[in-house]
């Protein structure tokens, strides 16, 4: 057999920018999830670590079951989801038009962007005393904390999404007689939409990370509150259960956003 007749070898999966089949991808993904779980199981069952500090996966699972059956897991989850969505949607409703305007018009950019940049570096946690003074300790205070944590980042990211619209798309519309309003509505917004949805997906993640902070404010329910309460009584299994649950909900949200992206923007996912 001559060498040249040998079938070409598939490029290695370790090549830079190399490709994985679907099966290979999910195998690696499963490994990435299973390995830490295995390590956790081994470490907690080895007896090296006090179970008070590191409960095993089984113990956390039991705790979750108990939380679901004997206590109000569903209620805690529901109120937390409500708070996160409240803060997130309130952010989005203001940040989307504002970001669009900042990205489209230089004077508005100059007016608002430095200010936003300034505020976004302020720690959301530090606003808790102020928020309690201004809004009290009810639900609006918790939503406000999540809003403070997400809004300023979201505005800047949406503005950047709009700025990245290719100039040729805008100028083509101008030479077809489009007015300023038409360009904003029919070109900038349409062109930036997929990137804006990605911005929402990413900021949704941040909204969840502010949940525990928000539930520092005189809460008596919610996943973040459960974690904080468990700290007081050294119930590490509850802390673990809460963290894992928030992670799972976040993963679910992320996948939902990705699904929406594929559904809403078929032109990006179509094959040539």
């Amino acid at each position, binding site marked *: 057999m001559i060498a040249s007749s040998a079938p070409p070898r598939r490029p290695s999966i370790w090549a830079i920018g190399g490709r994985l089949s679907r099966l290979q991808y999910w195998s690696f993904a499963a490994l990435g999830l299973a390995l830490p779980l295995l390590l956790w199981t081994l470490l907690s069952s080895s007896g090296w670590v006090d179970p008070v500090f590191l409960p095993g996966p089984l113990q956390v699972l039991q705790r979750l079951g108990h939380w679901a059956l004997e206590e109000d897991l569903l209620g805690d989850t529901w109120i937390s989801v409500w708070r996160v969505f409240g803060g997130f949607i309130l952010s989005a409703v203001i940040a989307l038009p504002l970001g669009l305007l900042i990205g489209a018009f230089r004077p508005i950019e100059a007016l608002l962007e430095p200010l936003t940049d300034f505020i976004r570096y302020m720690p959301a946690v530090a606003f808790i005393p102020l928020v309690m003074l201004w809004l009290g300790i009810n639900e609006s205070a918790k939503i406000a904390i999540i809003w403070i944590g997400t809004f300023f980042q979201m505005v800047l990211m949406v503005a950047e999404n709009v700025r990245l619209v290719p100039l040729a798309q805008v100028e083509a519309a101008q030479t077809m007689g489009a007015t300023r309003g038409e360009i904003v509505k029919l070109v900038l917004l*349409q062109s930036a939409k997929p990137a804006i949805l990605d911005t929402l997906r990413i900021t949704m993640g941040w909204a969840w990370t502010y949940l525990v902070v928000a539930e520092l404010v005189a809460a008596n329910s919610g996943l973040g509150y459960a974690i904080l309460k468990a700290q007081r009584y050294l119930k590490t299994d509850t802390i673990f259960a809460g963290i894992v649950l928030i992670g799972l909900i976040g993963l679910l949200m992320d996948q939902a956003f990705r699904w929406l992206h594929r559904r809403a923007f078929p032109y990006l996912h*179509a094959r040539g």
Partner: protein
Amino acid sequence: MSTLVQPKVRIRALGKVFEHSTAPHPALDGIDLDIADGEFVTLVGASGCGKSTLLRILAGLEHHSSGELLCDGHPVRGPGADRAMVFQHYSLYPWLSVIDNIKFSRRLKANRGELTSADVEAASGRADALLSLIGLEKFARAWPRQLSGGMQQRVAIARALMGRPAVLLMDEPFGALDAQSREVMHDLILHIHRVERTTIVFVTHDVEEAIYLGQRVVVMQPRPGRIQQIVPVPLPAQRHQDMKHTPEFRALKAEILARIKASAGMETDADLLERLNAVQATA
């Protein structure tokens, strides 16, 4: 009647100064040019000669600093549907199908309530006609990203023609295409020019392209951008690829290239060539 002699585009003593933060930079100076109705004019020159700036001023995307610019007798004050432009790339709307990209200018009017149902029907007919003119009937429902670069530029041309602009402005529209696609595009745009009788102003840095397409070639020179010479192309109106190999064509190309090189003063490039020759001589 004066309309018989009125040029489509009239440019007089036009100048452009870019107000940079450091120092004002003169980009164009003393441009005089008349473009007749239905004429195909190409602008060619070394980089920095202001040919694209001149085209963008015609489009209204840049403002001139001095002089006069009239289109159909009206001063140009900003971009408008009478001066559609085809860009080098990235100007199609990826979220719209090919046919909806072509109909974009009609959609603007429809949104303003300026269209009757008869207009809409006529527009559909026009869009279909343009689609077959560019030979993409089968791709009406395709997304732009599913098309090759050459096909995308064909869609961009059809979209620009949709509103029957007085002048079609083209800014190096085939600069990013491979040689074979460019030849196809050359014959396509000449065909479109014959069929649509549109006035076309075409910017390129490719001298061969400028001669093959243009009825007149406007040769520009840099620092500041000026018109060096306006060369009428002595080729028959009906162009053919074989013409590129005739002695007259090659002579004209050599002449224009020499003029561009002389005016551009590319000292560094000349230096490099000299050094490369020296190295080869010693080797």
